[in-house]
């Protein structure tokens, strides 16, 4: 079995989805000949043609707004937003139309639209290219929001998202695009909207998604050397949240640390902390701790390593939780 990068895995997933269903379209800026700035759509236009892989004019509202019309006509558009920081011009179409049309029409209209967003920092980029806007979408009823963390999930989750009859905002951790894993296409994937324990442990529960899953696994490995046994859960789905495995874990460990790159204030961690506390109140030995980006705009890349949660900051929070 060959090793495959996350970028290639999503590319293969898109290809499989387009092969399986002629109604699947890919649209966005530079998704055609260039294959996207991260090459995630590489080769698709060559093989599926310009009618199915559409280089659009440079306007995100236009991409999502026309996707709504295409969806009404029976197509399943997969819209690429080039970088996280450029999704905002489409925010109105996403929040007021994509998210609400099923509700508005009492289900007469469905919106099987996937919005692919390479997100997060750590690649030394300029402003607007390293953001984590997931909380905006998770707070928006009518959308479903997921984040993949590795090539295997990248391959399967994009196909599952495309076959979902509801709009799915699909976050791809851009700094992990070049990381590899073995993909066994015969091994059936987990359901899309489920979280998963990726490392069992007894002392503390660590919750992450997207780029921070790897960071947390590394932190857990380091902690193990100090005799701390950390359980790591890859949330995978941010809306709906799959809290079952999380509550189960916290009832066992009594401690939880949520980690994400987005600013802590009103980030996913706030909702997760609130829910854990509601459900596991008497099991908690310490308040749910949150590690994330600071409550500032994303800083110049020369300080992003300080801005982003890293092994040390995660472990520091683990210690605070254990010492509480």
């Amino acid at each position, binding site marked *: 079995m060959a090793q495959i990068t996350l970028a290639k895995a999503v590319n293969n997933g898109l290809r499989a989805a387009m092969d399986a269903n002629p109604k699947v379209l890919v649209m966005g800026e530079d998704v055609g000949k260039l294959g996207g700035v991260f090459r995630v759509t590489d080769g698709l236009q060559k093989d599926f043609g310009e009618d199915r892989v559409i280089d659009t004019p440079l306007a995100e509202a236009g991409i999502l*707004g026309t996707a709504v019309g295409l969806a009404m006509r029976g197509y399943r558009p997969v819209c690429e937003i080039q970088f996280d920081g450029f999704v905002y011009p489409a925010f109105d179409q996403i929040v007021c*139309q994509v998210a609400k049309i099923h509700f508005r029409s009492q289900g007469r209209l469905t919106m099987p639209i996937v919005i692919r967003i390479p997100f997060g920092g750590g690649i030394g980029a300029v402003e607007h290219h390293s953001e984590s806007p997931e909380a905006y979408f998770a707070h928006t009823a009518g959308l479903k929001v997921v984040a993949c963390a590795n090539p295997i999930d990248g391959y399967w989750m994009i196909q599952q998202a495309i076959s979902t009859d509801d709009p799915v905002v699909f976050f791809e951790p851009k700094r992990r695009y070049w990381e590899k894993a073995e993909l066994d296409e015969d091994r059936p994937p987990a359901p899309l909207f489920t979280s998963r324990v990726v490392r069992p442990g007894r002392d503390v529960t660590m919750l992450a998604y997207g780029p921070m899953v790897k960071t947390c696994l590394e932190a857990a490995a380091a902690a193990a050397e100090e005799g701390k046994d950390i359980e790591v859960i890859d949330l995978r789905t941010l809306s709906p949240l799959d809290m079952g495995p999380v509550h189960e874990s916290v009832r066992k460990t009594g401690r939880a640390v949520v980690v994400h790159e987005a600013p802590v204030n009103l980030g996913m961690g706030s909702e997760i902390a609130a829910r854990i506390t509601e459900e596991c109140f008497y099991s908690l030995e310490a308040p749910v701790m949150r590690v994330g980006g600071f409550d500032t705009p994303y800083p110049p890349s020369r300080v992003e390593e300080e801005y982003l949660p890293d092994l040390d900051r995660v472990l520091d929070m683990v210690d605070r939780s254990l010492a509480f």
Partner: protein
Amino acid sequence: MTESDFGPDLGEVFGLSHDGHGAELVQLLTPEGQRLEHPDFSFDLDDEAIMGFYRDLVMTRRIDTEATALQRQGELGIWASLLGQEAAQIGSGRAMRPNDFAFPTYREHGVAWCRGVEPLHLLGLFRGVDQGGWDPYEHNFGLYTIVIGAQTLHATGYAMGMQRDGVVGSGESDQDSAVIAYFGDGATSQGDVNEAFIWASVFNAPVVFFCQNNQWAISEPIEKQSRIPLYQRALGFGFPGIRVDGNDVLACYAVSQAALRRAREGSGPTFVEAYTYRMGAHTTSDDPTRYRVTEELEHWKLKDPIARVKAYLVRNGVTPENFFDSVDAEADQIAAQLRKGCLELPDPSPLDMFDQVYEDESPELAVERDKFAGYLSSFEGAH
């Protein structure tokens, strides 16, 4: 604005179009009911059809009047009247074919009528029992869209879907289809609408941008949105724009028909500016006396879209015995039905809202619904 001595001619130099190519209004029926011919647009239907239009116009206005009355009596939360814009809507609506698709704003009651949408279904949104009570696919008529301009992009995307389905310029004119996007003068300022123009022109999508310039965006006159005639906006995007007398149902029909035909044939988008007037308030919540003078209203009353059709029919004595009375009678009957239906509209069940968010239910939301159901039932005993 001080005019620089050579500002104006520089304007020329720079290529500002003053030629008013198509500047004058396309009109086929004068306010006095006189038929006119136009070199480029001819009305190709008979007096039978004009009588049909007359009926459409009267029914639409009657439905609108009844809805306004229902709002006054507290049966609707709000109503957006189309008073004065009947011709623009009936003319364009009747120019559509069954497999064409329309994307309305919140004021297209006349178009809805043409698309066979049951008038009662228009009231749900305004009564607050739903947010769009008809099946868009049953009538090829989208749901009312309240966010200004958003539907123009939906229309363009839908038209791109038609292209991909091979029903544009296929040569088989009976299957060829097009989209018509309705929007107002104020909407032309929204980024979305201008992006729709770009998409439609770049992809040569089969969409007719039908702008009802009713001179007002709530309290703002057209001057706040554009300093040139709106139909000229299309020049900047490389497709045709034309201004039609929006109170002339024949002209609106002829121009819309030509534009729709172009679109179906694969010749791309067209911008139609229906020059009309909002005779009523923006909505029943609005008070126009704060921002506009009654003279304006009086002036436009002389151009009433219905009166001129009646004048034409009368002048030419083509109508059967008590045609007008029977139309009025039918209108009153429809209005009565509408009122009755409105009062009987059932309130939605609170639990429905949880089930209509997603196509594939979210487990979270199911829990929320069940909790709330439990909470609601906890009151049952309470009295």
